[in-house]
């Protein structure tokens, strides 16, 4: 497909729209970073400048790290995200393989149920999940943060779409070569669907790193809180007026995601455009 040449007016208009929409998304971030570098007095000044008049960053970031156990919260987040992601891949890949490549009675119905699961927001399930965790006696533990997310309909759907594009002959060859069905999943399908796995990982990690709603319900112990919940605790503690350290903490929480996304951007795009992978 050749690029379509736009007239200068149309090009300006198009870029204008793009700049405006990206500004909508980027301004809060820039503002956050900017506030995290300013002194309390400057934050509430009527005029706005991106760069601080008086560099207060060191104090804000030091306070963010020391006044609440932010490293602990981030460590919790990391642990929970890693556990969720590992469990999700462990569950989704075999399930998606079965839906994509095996023939069994009721397969289409089960896949329809997966699609229904895809439509349900997690908040709808929070009450049943809470009761489940209560009955299992795992409330206020790491497990309570992980268990409700172990089965991801989105992961099953994404993997299934990818696995379906892998030719049946490869599965047949693997069976003849002596691989068990599970070995086919882990040795053949998952490596061949690596872009999808990486794209899914990014989605999963972003969603659960930023999740506030469920941890708020599931854990009360400060030692178990993931980062967003920790930031909230921070805000309460500081009575809501010490925005500099709050924004510094927020910046620190968001930073790992930005870095991870930039590092994996190539695979992310590839995974989302699915069919282009041979």
């Amino acid at each position, binding site marked *: 497909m050749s690029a379509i040449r736009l007239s200068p007016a149309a090009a300006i208009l198009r870029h204008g729209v793009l700049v405006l929409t990206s500004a909508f998304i980027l301004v809060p971030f820039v503002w956050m970073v900017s506030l995290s570098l300013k002194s309390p007095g400057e934050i509430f000044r009527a005029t706005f400048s991106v760069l601080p008049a008086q560099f207060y960053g060191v104090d804000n970031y030091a306070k963010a790290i020391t006044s609440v156990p932010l490293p602990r919260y981030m460590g919790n987040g990391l642990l929970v995200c890693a556990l969720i992601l590992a469990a999700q891949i462990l569950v989704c890949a075999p399930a998606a393989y079965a839906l994509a490549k095996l023939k069994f009675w009721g397969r289409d119905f089960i896949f329809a149920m997966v699609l229904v699961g895809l439509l349900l927001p997690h908040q709808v399930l929070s009450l049943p999940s809470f009761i489940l965790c209560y009955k299992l006696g795992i409330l206020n533990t790491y497990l309570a943060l992980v268990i409700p997310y172990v089965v991801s309909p989105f992961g099953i759907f994404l993997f299934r779409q990818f696995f379906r594009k892998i*030719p049946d*002959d*490869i599965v*047949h*060859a*693997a*069976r*003849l*070569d*002596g*691989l068990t069905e599970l*070995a086919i999943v882990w040795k*053949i399908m998952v*490596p*061949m669907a*690596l872009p999808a796995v990486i794209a899914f990982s990014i989605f999963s990690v972003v969603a659960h790193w930023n999740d506030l709603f469920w941890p708020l319900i599931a854990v009360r112990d400060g030692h178990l809180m993931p980062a967003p919940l920790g930031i909230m605790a921070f805000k309460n503690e500081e009575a809501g007026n010490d925005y500099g350290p709050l924004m510094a903490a927020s910046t620190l929480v968001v930073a790992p995601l930005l870095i991870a996304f930039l590092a994996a951007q190539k695979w992310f795009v590839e995974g989302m455009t699915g069919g282009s992978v*041979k």
Partner: protein
Amino acid sequence: MSGIAIRNIRKSFGATRVLHDVSLSIADGEFLTLLGPSGCGKSTLLRILAGLEVQDTGSIEIGGRVVDGIRPKRRDVAMVFQSYALYPHMSVAANIALPLRMRRLSRAQRLPLIGRWLPGSGPVISGIEMEVSRTAEALGIAHLLNRRPGQLSGGQRQRVAVGRAMVRHPAVFLMDEPLSNLDAKLRVQMRAEIKDLHRRLGVTFVYVTHDQAEAMTLSDRVVVMRDGEILQVAPPQEIYADPNDMRVAEFLGSPKINMVDATMREPGLVDLAGSALPVACEIAPGSKFTVGIRPEAFQFAEHPGPGVITGSVRMVEHMGSDLFVYFDPCGLEHPLIARLSAERAPHIVAGQTLHVSVRPDQLLVFNRDGRRVRARDVSRTNPSTPVREWA
């Protein structure tokens, strides 16, 4: 040792019946080709042999052992796929080694990184590496072992697929149109290599193709299939010269066999394309049937006469040693094709009148159902001498 017996296999996909009661026995070390147009069930039969599909009824025996319900990896068969089905994320060496690793190493020994250092795995792994490099050398792909399949040409991928199949010394080789993704020149070369491979390994080969040239050149016996049925099983020469069924005669041979409607005038003489030709089989006078004449069965004749077909030439194709002459005998809707030797036939041009003769034994007679009527079959169809069935 590793012959195959296929008994009464039936298979349907939903409402579509793919195989109707197919039975076949394959000798140990034989090169057997399943030949037929696409959709005739030949690939399905091969997949049933491999255990990748399950038959609805019937039974398969490989090497004297009934293998129904036995998983593909326990059947001692290897398969080469049309798409090669190489694992794109593994190197050529890893592709070829995988069947051996799965068979010789325990689950723990196959673990990445750690497996190599577990007790007992060292010698096995180096044994596998040696066999992989020996196989690669035999196929001329030793220099490609570290590449990925995506970096190889079609012919090289094909060799890797063959290597992966042969490395574990299976009793039976199954090949599903392995050459159809290659260009014409490479196909001829690989055809010779497969023939040579069969000679060296001496194991049973079952080869699926829709290409008659592959079937004719490679096989000990050819199985012609159509619509889920076996039409004929015979050595290549026989299947060409002595087909059982009109569909077999039409599928084999290029240019295609001429099929002409004919009427029996009197015993031993048939009305065909405006001429009376002597024919070897005895059919009741007045009955209608079809006669098949291979293009090369026509002989150039100087003059019209008894047993000579006459027509005007529509088109001539020069093929070097041969001429393909399309001519219209009177009373026929479609032209006949004659393959005449360029030396023996003088300069033939479109529009001229052509005389050709045919030897009586080269007329293939088919009845209304498309079944072949042979000279020796006559006594059997005669109601006065019933054939006794020994049950």
